[in-house]
């Protein structure tokens, strides 16, 4: 048995998939048992993924997020953690149809990639790297949650369904996701800047990934304020959450796929 065993990773994916399908089913045919099973599957998938992550971390001796498989695996784990946090704290299964497909996309995209543990290149051998990565993906996961809540807000505004949470509640949760995400992303920027300083002698690099990470930070800093302006509350805020997720996706994936950058994780 090895934590990179494709069977274990696929089992994790299958549990999430099952949970997503059950959540969808529960949305169409409300049923408490269905809902509990869906949550149970999600918890089981998350427990398995946490185990695999910890196991991989222990075997490698460092958080293995130095290649695309590693980051997709960790991003999907962070998203599952954030979704569970909101779901368990606020009873929010209605967000699942929006967060779980994204989780499945992230983990699904990792499935065809090589899960073997990479060796650590010396430049990444610092705790600042671990902090930078952990905060960045937790931040991204909260921005993804905000995206899901933004979509949920727009759906609820059109449908006014009694089975979905109140608009005011969705708005409040969205603001919470943005503030928590922004705080964690600030920690990601601070640890990244410290790392850049010890690695390069300067704390901000004008490489495209660095610039876009600053943009993500600035965008969500703007959102932390926009919620105080009445005109931007509600629909405007939901749309901003959706647009912000586009910026996140471009920074995380788009730059690596479309452009060239000298960021150490490219």
């Amino acid at each position: 048995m090895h934590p990179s065993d494709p069977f274990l990773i696929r089992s994790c994916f299958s549990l999430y998939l099952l949970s997503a399908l059950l959540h969808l089913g529960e949305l169409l045919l409300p049923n408490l048992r269905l809902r509990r099973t869906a949550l149970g599957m999600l918890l089981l998938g998350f427990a398995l993924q946490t185990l695999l992550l910890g196991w991989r971390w222990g075997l490698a001796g460092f958080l293995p997020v130095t290649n695309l498989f590693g980051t997709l695996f960790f991003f999907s784990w962070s998203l599952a953690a954030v979704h569970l946090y909101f779901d368990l704290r606020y009873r929010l299964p209605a967000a699942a149809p929006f967060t779980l497909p994204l989780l499945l996309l992230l983990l699904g995209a990792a499935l065809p990639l090589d899960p073997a543990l990479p060796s650590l290149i010396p430049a990444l051998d610092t705790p600042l790297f671990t902090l930078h990565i952990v905060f960045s993906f937790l931040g991204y996961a909260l921005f993804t949650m905000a995206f899901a809540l933004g979509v949920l807000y727009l759906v609820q505004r059109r449908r006014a369904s009694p089975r979905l949470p109140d608009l005011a509640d969705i708005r409040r949760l969205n603001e919470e996701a943005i503030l928590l995400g922004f705080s964690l992303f600030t920690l990601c920027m601070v640890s990244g800047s410290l790392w850049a300083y010890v690695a390069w002698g300067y704390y901000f690099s004008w490489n495209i990934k660095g610039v876009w990470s600053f943009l993500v930070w600035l965008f969500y800093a703007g959102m932390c304020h926009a919620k105080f302006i009445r005109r931007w509350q509600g629909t405007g805020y939901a749309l901003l959450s959706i647009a912000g997720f586009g910026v996140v996706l471009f920074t995380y994936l788009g730059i690596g796929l479309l452009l060239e950058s000298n960021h150490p994780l490219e």
Partner: protein
Amino acid sequence: MPLRIWNTLCSLKLAVVLASAATAVIMGGSLLMPGRPGLFGAMDRQLLGEWFSGPAAMRLGETWWVYLAAVLILGLGVNALCCFLDWLAHLRQRWRKTGEYLIHLGFVLVLAAYAWGSVSGFRGEEIKVRAGETVALPGMPGHYLRLEGFEPRVGAGGRPLDMINRLVLLQGERELRRETVRINHPLTWKGVSVLAASFGEEATGFRFLAGGAKEIDLGPGSELTLEGGGRLRVLAFHPDVVVRPDGRVVPGGPDLRNPAFALELTTDKETWRGWYLLRQGLPPRLSSAGLQLRPLEPVGRTYSLLSVNLDPGASMALAGGLLLGAGSILALFSYYAKRSRRDRPELD
């Protein structure tokens, strides 16, 4: 009137406008960056101020957005500072927002530090230093770096793993700092950072197969007694020389291209001096003296390449970064306590 100006400077709406405008400008402009690596890549190799007045000024058509973004972000900095001061003035009623306002102060400090470091100091001065040498620190008169020991670590397949530099920073004779500099561990002192950038090997001589199948290493100062009674001394070794049209031999670059020895042969009757260009074979005078040499491989020593930066704003930026971090953690944990109080500004 002054109150109106102050209120505008403290305005949250202005913050949203500036942040959105800066985001939009950088978003659009940054897409030009990957296509012009020469122009935008230089932003990391020199101070932003130098880049603004040098390469960027010559290609304003492609770089105007960076100037505009700088103005917008500086405006945001002033705006955030005013908000912070305004909060400070109402601390009694608004102390619960300490985390949030530490974030604002941290941002202002980092921005001011970045602006400071963009107009003074220097970036990426490379120095080549060998173990045992003391070299002058660029841009810091009277300061020196002594490399007490250097050990490159190379992994399987020749992959460079680390560069262990035992460095001492000196002011005149006085020791200021002693540090083992390696990847991710620079020597820092008052805004100066010295980093292990790279290392290389330089040829200091050559290994030969001499008569009797004996291997010998020759380098500056080596001496050899010839069977015929003469004495050969190596005056100098150059990894590369250039032969001028008039026959004069002059040293070339540091890379091993056309290696040559300046030699001196002393016999009872005469002293001969001349060049031995390895690619051309032994000069006839040396062969006739009974010398047999077949070049095998260069012998050399490693040197360390250090990169030196000076950023006078570095400590201020660190203070700002720590405030940003502390503010974020505080804002994160105090969020739930405050949520129930609903004390938030609400603007039309």
